[in-house]
């Protein structure tokens, strides 16, 4: 019991795989395509004659020509050069909630009865998927305390966007849209909050944290006015510190006539312990691919949920999924709705996984997620803070929720080794690189671990031991850390100006070739 590997002799796969455009030979085929039947060909004639003359492709696209095994092998190798949650202790990507994505869910979403459903099918033929979506929405109501849910958003940021659209719709209805043109947020809230607000033309007023690391309440009081449309705030913020004055924040904004939007992307430590609506919020959102266990898929597809109070129910993104007692249906009859956010109905595969996840855990299991992620986090923090050079700014001695923002500032000052160096070095120990901080870096040399409930004590011990070893290296042989990684899939150091200088920048192979000329 309690065994974990120290100084794992790790090396990531390194295939030195050529670029796909350079592989294969003219004439090779990776897959054959169904052909039209004899009779169809007979009646339709030449395909090229069925296209208006000017629109016929003049030069075939220069795609690679490869046989099937060779394509497969290439991508298998690339997959091996990628460190997913399935193969590492993925504690480092804090705020991303890199929990285990149950494999049974993958079997479920690969059912033909789901994969091959067309979104425009008659509702009578999609009762199963609609039931799943409807029940998801009911569960999210229970978790948030809100009254209406839309599963339209294709990701967390789009859900936040939907909430900003709802703010606009609400004040337009009240005839106050022109007057209320300011949205207040905090510097440690997710950048999508100011990002979406600005996308819709709102002015953004940002609050800094006070000395305790929580958003400055006095600053909020000074910021609100008759121009305030809303407060958009994350809790806990990336620091993991629970904002215990959150109710006061809400009250101040409500008194000024504004709405309050809760960014609940960091839900994992909150399940069943506290609810957005109970804190007085008018809206919140969830990232269903995070706390509800969908695999992150190299950045998507994810899914988001928009949850609102009764007063705002009429505005949510359409369609919603409803149930009339006998059948499930898509409700488009929402004249005040902010409309559609995404093609069709959000990302149903993520919704199936969320459904299965909630069903496999039940009310007590969901609460256990929160409890264990809080427990894990505080345990890991305690371990990590024994490491020389690593500290946890703000609110000393206070427990954190499910994640924490730590700082290597002291180590950097003493050794010159920065968080970016350590972030590369940790890969040599067999871990994915870690998340430092959203922009901007309010705390110097940040590091934000999030040891969610699916990691064991041994996992955390191994993780902490690796950082202790790296800190030791930083103090004794800093150049070793600065030169890292050595054992990652890419064994050479990139020339960064290729990514920062527009004149050297290429997003495609053809553009890169052209730059060389």
């Amino acid at each position, binding site marked *: 019991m309690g065994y974990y590997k120290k100084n794992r002799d790790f090396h990531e796969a390194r295939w030195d795989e050529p670029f796909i455009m350079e592989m294969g030979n003219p004439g090779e085929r990776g897959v054959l395509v169904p052909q039209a039947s004899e009779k169809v060909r007979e009646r339709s004639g030449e395909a090229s004659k069925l296209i208006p003359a000017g629109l016929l492709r003049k030069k075939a*696209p220069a795609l690679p020509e490869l046989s099937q095994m060779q394509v497969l092998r290439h991508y298998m190798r690339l997959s091996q050069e990628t460190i997913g949650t399935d193969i590492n202790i993925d504690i480092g990507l804090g705020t991303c909630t890199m929990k285990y994505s149950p494999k049974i869910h993958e079997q479920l979403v690969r059912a033909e009865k789901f994969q091959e459903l067309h979104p425009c099918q008659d509702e009578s033929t999609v009762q199963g998927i609609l039931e799943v979506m409807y029940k998801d929405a009911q569960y999210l109501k229970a978790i948030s305390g809100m009254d209406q849910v839309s599963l339209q958003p294709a990701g967390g940021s789009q859900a936040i966007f939907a909430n900003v659209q709802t703010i606009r719709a609400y004040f337009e209805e009240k005839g106050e849209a022109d007057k209320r043109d300011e949205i207040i947020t905090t510097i440690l809230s997710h950048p999508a909050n100011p990002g979406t607000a600005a996308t819709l033309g709102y002015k953004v007023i940002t609050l800094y944290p006070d000395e305790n690391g929580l958003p400055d309440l006095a600053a909020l009081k000074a910021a609100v006015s008759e121009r305030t449309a809303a407060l958009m705030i994350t809790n806990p913020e990336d620091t993991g510190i629970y904002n215990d004055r959150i109710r006061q924040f809400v009250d101040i904004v409500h008194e000024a006539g504004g709405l309050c939007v809760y960014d609940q992307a960091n839900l994992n430590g909150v399940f069943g312990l506290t609810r957005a609506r109970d804190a007085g919020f008018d809206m919140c959102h969830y990232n269903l691919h995070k706390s509800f266990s969908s695999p992150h898929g190299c950045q998507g597809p994810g899914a988001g949920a928009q949850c609102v109070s009764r007063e705002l129910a009429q505005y949510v993104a359409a369609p919603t999924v409803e149930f009339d007692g006998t059948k499930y249906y898509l409700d488009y009859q929402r004249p005040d709705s902010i409309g559609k956010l995404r093609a069709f109905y959000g990302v149903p595969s993520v919704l199936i996984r969320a459904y299965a996840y909630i069903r496999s855990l039940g009310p007590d299991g969901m609460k256990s997620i929160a409890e264990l992620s809080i427990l894990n986090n505080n345990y890991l923090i305690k371990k990590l803070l024994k490491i020389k050079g690593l500290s946890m700014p703000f609110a000393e001695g206070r427990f954190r929720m499910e994640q924490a923002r730590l700082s290597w500032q002291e180590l950097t000052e003493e050794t010159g080794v920065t968080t970016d160096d350590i972030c590369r070095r940790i890969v040599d120990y067999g871990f994915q690189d870690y998340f430092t901080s959203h922009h901007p870096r309010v705390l110097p040399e940040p590091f934000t671990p999030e040891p969610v409930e699916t990691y064991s004590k041994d996992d955390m011990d191994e993780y902490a031991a690796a950082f202790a070893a790296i800190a030791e290296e930083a103090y004794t042989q800093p150049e070793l850390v600065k030169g890292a990684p050595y054992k990652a899939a890419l064994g050479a150091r990139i020339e960064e100006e290729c990514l920062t200088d527009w004149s050297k920048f290429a997003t495609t192979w053809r553009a890169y070739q052209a730059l060389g000329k």
Partner: protein
Amino acid sequence: MERSFVHPYMPNSVPEVKQQLLDELGVKSVREIYESIIPKDLLYKGRLDLPEPIHSEYELKKHVTDILNKNISTEEYASFLGAGCYKHQVPAICDEINTRGEFLTAYCGDTYSDHGKMQAIFEYASMMGELLDADVVSYTTYDAGQSVCSSFRMAVRIQSAAGKEKSVILVPDTMNPDIFSQADAYCRNVAEIEKVPHVPETGLLDMKELKERLEKGNVAAVFYENPSYLGFFEEQAEEIARLAHQYDAVCIAQPQVSSLGIAESPMNLGADIVCGDIQPLGMHLQYGGGQAGFIASRQKLEYMEQFPTYMYGIARTDKEGAYGYGRAMNYRCSHGSREKANEYFGTETGLWGITAGVYLASMGPQGMYELGETILLNLNYLTLRLNELKGVKANPFGRSNFQEVLVDFNDSGKTAGEINRALLEHRIFGGKDLSREFPGLGQCALYCVSELTTQGEMDALVDALGQILR
């Protein structure tokens, strides 16, 4: 006492292990931790109103499968549905690769540790570049709608950066209505989106009207789809681009990617920004969950600066012949620079980008040509056969179509909805009923085929319609 709940996803739910952690922290219970940080009045006193857990994996699978079995899939019924989501052959290796745990569960690792992912995404963009004949291809967006929305805003920014305050976006009135409403909401504070009518007889964009609108001098961009939402090729593509440029407007086009092995890319017809959806390139239907967007342009700085998404760039390394990749120039994005960003964005559809790469590498130029060929032949056959029916007019505009064709039931005495319901009896999903989206067209439906549609299915459809409309 806290409940002990040992679950396979939670190793530290084992009471002894949990106790070790608690001891280390010097607390008696987790409750003690969270009660010290969450105010009492905010603590949820109740038990979440969720159903009791399903105990085992097998039972869970059975439970969910039982629900999903209430669905009828397009493998069971012949489907003529498209309208933005298309059933194509999905090569087995696409599924094989995108279910690999490494890709499936990776997220935002970077240049060195996720080298394979970065290369796969750069390769995707590179192959899209070939298919589109474009130098710059974005990282995947949420869907075609998002790509269109962002392309519109890009155009406004491009104009604004050039010192021109132009904010009107002209679009065909036949465009995808969902995407239109998405774009209308998304661009509201920066642009006005105006519909340009089609010529009633041909369905094509009314060029005279287009010119008149352009002459006002306030047009930032002209947008067209090719093929249009209603299935016909916009034959005036080159002329639209020429006119747009004459009035200093950006030309934005949305092609159907599955057509590009045989049909010309809008890039070669004068378009400046090309955008659309990659769902046809290896993604299953998934009830609309396989959508993912792209945005592309030429290698022109004034365009590249305005992309609102991540872009994956290639970088030389200190080793000859070895390349690395990185997300670059992200000061344009909301992750990079908060509200000074052009637009917001977040976790989008990376896995579908990688999958589309596998698809294009498998298909090659020959596969893409044959794909387009089969679709054209099948659609033409279906059109001919439908027109044998009395009261049915397929392709009323008399144009060349790709993949989808408008079918006019106005003379049949039945609504498109009634017909579709009747077709279900024949185990057929009829084309999408357009009577709500395009009331002006009356009772019309949009019929879609692909390379998977068999002659047998088409003949069965015609037979069924024959019976229904008898």
